[in-house]
């Protein structure tokens, strides 16, 4: 009997209600007897709900029939019925899990009142009811049950602010539900039934003005419950003030219930899909814009929450419009679960940290576990891999693309970018170590619910990956390696370094072993090169928490990027690379702020790529990278993708993130960023150029524009590098300039152009690696980055000087080293193409490059050495080792460029016919010829002969080696090295002549963009004046507007 009851009732979905109500009555009883046992009953019942939902869902997934529960055994429409199908089960399970974890988090406040426990249970039950019921009026009742429970929970507080917010909430929702009731009764009036299925099947009966008003009332009340812009101030106030436990449940639970109700009723709303989409889209975008202005942590989460609900609604409606019902589970479900767990987790975190202003979140800067949780939640919310949001957004954007809904794509991506902006700004605040703030204290178990939510997110994301068209082991290898290394992060630095190197070597080899062609070339550069440079990280012996795991993730994601065969894999690895490099930059002392700019521009770049892939998918219906070439609108796809890659490479105008990020990152990591990570953009550019750029029907125009962008980047990068005082900023700008040449080379779309681009790429890797590693050594020894505070270091660091000099000659393009070959081929290719103006600018910028190159050598190594630098030692050997390898490579390629050019040419040959003509050792083009070995020999000869002569002459002289102050000083003597070292504002005269060209206009522009968006945010939020009456008025006007917008009463 008992057993039968157990299996028939308790294990059925109805058991949820039984549990909730039963426990609800038992809890006060037990509470009287023993507080602890009441808790046990409470938590047990919630766990029971989760278990019931899980068991039934499991059964349904395994093929069991959809469970329909009919009250009193009477079939609808004569009685209320509940349904527990696949979707219902999923939502119920998710909500109950959130409720269980939320209860865990909320327990300390909850247990003060036994009635609060009861209310909590009823609230959860109400949500379950909203999801499962198939009766319209019953839906109303569950909404009201939920609402009353919520009101009561809010009303338990005694703070005036919370109560005031609660009152506004009550007023607003009760108005909305009054309208819902009106709508319901009108529908009943026309259809004569309240069963949703019947209503839908008799949808035709709803007609005329009454029918319109009825459906619109129902629809609008549900939308209002989802808090659309601008009629949502009441919701924000509750999010801001209420206890994080309640806020999270309102944000994810109640909203989920209402959202599911909307989903159920959507077949009735066919006529209004457009208005719903507009409302949802506006809510998503505008909430995220307003969020930019917000500094209150929980209110900010409120904006995010509202925005996410807008996105969910938008996705639902758009899929409905596109008849893509099959993807609803993936897209809406993914977004839903993502939002549910991440937002709830964030509200809980906000409760744990308990700092109102996000600027005060620096109190958790020394709590890595909280920081990691915060970061994971943010990444999930924005839709970074591997979280469910990533897959959902991917699918959504692909679908939108295939339906040519580019406006919606723009909106979704822009909204996500804005959301990323304020969320990661928050993260930056939390990362910022501020000694004045008291450190946050919380028990070990307090963040446990958040951690479980995070784990669930990762698990679901991983699970979703399995359903996608993806090479899961390869794509998740970087994360796996990172996780593994993170587990051993407590070990000594040397062990971690070794483990990281081994992991990257093994993983990189496994990922890239089968590559061919251009991918193989880049795998040497990115994986082997990255490994080479990461050897240099051994020079630091400190703990560097998180550095090695993230570095492994970065390098392996680069390898995975090369291996990607579909756009999805490419984008997945790309985002992973972005995220890991962002985090690596934040690890540096002053890297947090620049890292934010880096992340935002990188995400902007990623979204361009995303949109490009969507456009390609729309055209070909395939996500294979190899099919990119078949698109019907190559110009658009090419432009979108190229824009993305150029942003990533710091192209002219969108470069402002670059100098700061490079300058503030850890010194060895800067080398990685410049020499290796920037190559990912080139790789992408080459790939799309190969697939799209060379097609004849693309027209010259996008490529020509790209060529100009490249050369302007080169020119302005060089010009700006000239005026830098900070050594790393100088080289960062230089890096930007050098990448500009490569962009131009790729844009040429000719064999020679590509060979020169790839040659320059290899060269850039070599000399920038050397330069940044040298700089790492210098900064390590001098502890300075400003060049005018150095000087004369050639005496202490002769090896570093020689390496730097060779790197600089290789960069400058002076024969006989590698730079010349690149410049020569580029120039020839430009002339062949007839891009004369670009050629002239290339020439000019390479002349300007001399200025900063000389400045670097002069002010750091030459000139007067400071007194405090007298005892400096040479850079550590481990920093020099990779440099030696790279110097050897430069020398080998200089003397015998065929070594490099043959493989490059071979990699390009499948795309463009080979045009390299070899005459012996000489490379010939239409215009000229270049005999590198001979040049090397001649230069060596003409260099050696005077040297020998000078040595011989020296024998006849008494040469005295003198010290730094033994200079002719207008018959006076120098007094301090600082006075005598000409270094500060080195090119003041140049600034006077053409400095007006390099005033930071791009920075001013982007600052203005920030300013505008903040101003926009503050003008958009004027509606939230805090007055409950105004909010009620907005709700009323919302109804009126919806009715008028959809034809009013006249139709």
């Amino acid at each position: 009997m008992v057993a039968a009851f157990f299996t028939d009732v308790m294990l059925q979905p109805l058991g949820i209600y039984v549990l909730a109500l039963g426990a609800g009555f038992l809890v006060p009883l037990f509470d009287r007897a023993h507080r602890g046992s009441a808790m046990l009953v409470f938590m047990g019942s919630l766990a029971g709900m989760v278990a019931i939902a899980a068991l039934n869902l499991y059964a349904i997934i395994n093929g069991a029939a959809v469970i329909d529960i009919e009250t009193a055994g009477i079939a609808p429409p004569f009685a209320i019925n509940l349904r527990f199908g696949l979707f219902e089960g999923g939502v119920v399970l998710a909500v109950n899990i959130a409720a269980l974890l939320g209860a865990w988090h909320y327990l300390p406040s909850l247990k003060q009142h036994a009635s609060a426990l009861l209310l909590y249970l009823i609230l959860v039950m109400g949500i379950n009811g909203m999801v499962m019921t198939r009766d319209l009026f019953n839906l109303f009742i569950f909404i009201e049950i939920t609402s009353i429970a919520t009101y009561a929970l809010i009303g338990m507080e005694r703070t005036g602010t919370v109560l005031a917010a609660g009152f506004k909430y009550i007023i607003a929702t009760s108005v909305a539900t009054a309208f819902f009731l009106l709508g319901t009764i009108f529908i009943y009036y026309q259809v004569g039934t309240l069963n949703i299925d019947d209503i839908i099947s008799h949808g035709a009966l709803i007609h005329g003005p009454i029918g319109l008003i009825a459906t619109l009332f129902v629809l609008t009340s549900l939308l209002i419950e989802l808090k659309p812009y601008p009629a949502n101030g009441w919701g924000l106030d509750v999010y801001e003030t209420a206890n994080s436990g309640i806020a999270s449940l309102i944000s994810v639970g109640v909203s989920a219930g209402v959202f599911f109700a909307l989903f159920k009723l959507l077949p009735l709303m066919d006529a209004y899909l457009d208005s719903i989409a507009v409302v949802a889209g506006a809510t998503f975008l505008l909430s995220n814009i307003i969020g930019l202005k917000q500094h209150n942590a929980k209110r900010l989460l409120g904006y995010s929450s509202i925005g996410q609900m807008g996105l969910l609604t938008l996705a639902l409606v758009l899929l409905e419009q596109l008849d893509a019902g099959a993807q609803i589970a993936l897209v809406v479900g993914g977004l839903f679960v993502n939002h549910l767990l991440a937002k709830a987790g964030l509200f809980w975190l906000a409760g744990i940290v308990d700092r109102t202003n996000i600027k005060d979140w620096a109190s958790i800067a020394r709590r890595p576990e909280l920081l990691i949780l915060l970061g994971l939640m943010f990444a999930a919310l924005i839709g970074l891999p591997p979280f469910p949001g990533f897959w959902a957004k991917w699918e959504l954007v692909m679908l939108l693309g295939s339906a040519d809904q580019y406006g919606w794509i723009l909106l979704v991506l822009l909204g996500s970018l804005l959301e990323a902006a304020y969320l990661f700004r928050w993260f930056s605040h939390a990362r910022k170590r501020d000694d004045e703030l008291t450190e946050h204290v919380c028990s070990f178990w307090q963040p446990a619910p958040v951690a479980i939510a995070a784990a669930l997110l990762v698990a679901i994301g991983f699970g979703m990956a399995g359903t996608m068209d993806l090479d899961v082991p390869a794509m998740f290898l970087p994360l796996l390696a990172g996780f593994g290394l993170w587990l051993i992060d407590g070990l000594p630095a040397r062990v971690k370094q070794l483990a990281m190197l081994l992991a990257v070597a093994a993983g990189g080899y496994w990922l890239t072993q089968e590559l061919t062609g251009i991918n193989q070339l880049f795998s040497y550069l990115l994986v082997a090169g990255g490994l080479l440079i990461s050897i240099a990280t051994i020079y630091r012996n400190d703990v560097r928490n998180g550095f090695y795991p993230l570095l492994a993730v970065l390098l392996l994601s680069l390898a995975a990027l090369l291996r990607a065969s579909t756009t999805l894999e490419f984008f997945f690895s790309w985002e992973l690379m972005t995220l890991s490099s962002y985090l690596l930059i934040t690890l540096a002392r002053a890297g947090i702020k620049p890292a934010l700019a880096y992340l935002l521009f990188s995400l902007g770049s990623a979204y361009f790529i995303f949109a490009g892939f969507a456009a390609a998918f729309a055209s070909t219906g395939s996500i294979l990278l190899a099919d990119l070439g078949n698109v019907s609108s190559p110009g658009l796809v090419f432009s979108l993708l190229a824009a993305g890659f150029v942003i990533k490479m710091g192209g002219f105008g969108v470069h402002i993130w670059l100098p700061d990020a490079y300058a503030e990152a850890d010194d060895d990591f800067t080398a990685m960023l410049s020499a290796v990570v920037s190559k990912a953009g080139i790789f992408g550019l080459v790939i799309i150029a190969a697939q799209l750029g060379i097609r004849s029907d693309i027209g010259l125009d996008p490529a020509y524009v790209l060529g100009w962008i490249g050369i302007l980047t080169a020119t302005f990068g060089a010009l700006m590098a000239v005026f830098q005082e900070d050594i790393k900023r100088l080289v960062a700008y230089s890096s930007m300039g050098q990448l500009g040449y490569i962009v131009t080379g790729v844009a040429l779309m000719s064999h020679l152009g590509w060979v020169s681009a790839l040659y320059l790429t290899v060269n850039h890797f070599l000399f920038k690696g050397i330069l940044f590693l040298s700089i790492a050594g210098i900064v390590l020894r001098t502890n300075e980055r400003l060049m005018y505070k150095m000087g004369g270091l050639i005496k202490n660091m002769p090896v570093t000087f020689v390496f730097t000099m060779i790197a600089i000659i290789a960069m400058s393009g002076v024969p006989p080293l590698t730079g010349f070959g690149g410049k020569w081929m580029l120039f020839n290719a430009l002339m062949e193409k007839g891009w004369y103006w670009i050629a002239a600018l290339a020439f000019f910028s390479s002349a300007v490059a001399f200025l900063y190159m000389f400045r670097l050598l002069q002010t750091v190594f030459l000139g007067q050495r400071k007194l405090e630098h007298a005892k400096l030692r040479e850079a550590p050997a481990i920093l020099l080792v990779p440099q030696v390898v790279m110097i050897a490579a430069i020398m080998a390629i200089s003397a015998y460029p065929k070594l490099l050019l043959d493989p490059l040419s071979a990699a390009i040959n499948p795309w463009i016919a080979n045009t390299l003509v070899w005459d012996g050792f000489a490379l010939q083009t239409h215009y000229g010829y270049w005999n590198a070995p001979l040049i090397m020999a001649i230069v060596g000869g003409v260099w050696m002969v005077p040297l020998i002569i000078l040595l011989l002459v020296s024998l006849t002289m008494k040469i005295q080696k003198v010290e730094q102050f033994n200079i002719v000083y207008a018959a006076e003597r120098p007094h301090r090295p600082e006075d005598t070292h000409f270094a500060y504002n080195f090119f003041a005269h140049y600034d006077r002549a053409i400095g007006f060209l390099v005033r930071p206009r791009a920075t001013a522009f982007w600052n203005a963009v920030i300013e505008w968006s903040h101003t926009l945010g503050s003008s958009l939020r004027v509606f939230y004046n805090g007055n409950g009456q105004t909010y009620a008025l907005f709700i009323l006007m919302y109804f009126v507007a919806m009715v008028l917008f959809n034809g009013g009463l006249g139709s």
Partner: protein
Amino acid sequence: MIKSLSTEDTLENSGLSAEEQQLFCNARPKAYEPYPIKAVEDFANWARANSLWILAFGTGCGAIELRPLMTARFDANRFGVAGRPTPRQSSVFVIGGYASVKTLKRIIRSYEQMQGPKFVICLGICPVNGGMYFDSYNTINQFDLYLPVDLYITGCMPRPEVLVAGIMELQKKIKQGRCDGANRYVENFDWYKANQKKVIKNWDMPDYNW
């Protein structure tokens, strides 16, 4: 490649603080021998004589007499005379008349920065015996106490013609190989230094300004 002097040949540089001492070379100057082959030495002397680069450092009132040398009227360029703005490249130092103690310090510094063989011409009577400044508290009376002099051109002031004549005389002397002032300076270095330090009281420079 670069021969450095052995450490025992170092100077004390007591005028400098310990911190400054590491910024200045403390080697003692060394004399140079003539080339072992006579013909080479003669040829070298001929070249030196015909390429006299005067340090552009006007040390006294006589500096005004150097200017006309380069004009159309006197055109010392004919004799290979040219001005150089840096002591490193100059070979002739023309002391333009009186030398105050303050200037003497600069003269010594510049002279030591010139590379040998180097020659000094004293212009006017003041470097010889003080001239009209014989009783001045601030003007030296005998220049050759402080630096070796190769040629005196007396008068107050000698006109540029005399200067041209003096330059030709110097050329003659150089060709004969008799202008070894730089070596004399090195050989009697301690004596010269003592004389210099006797008058220059704030010796805040190394003992030899390389």
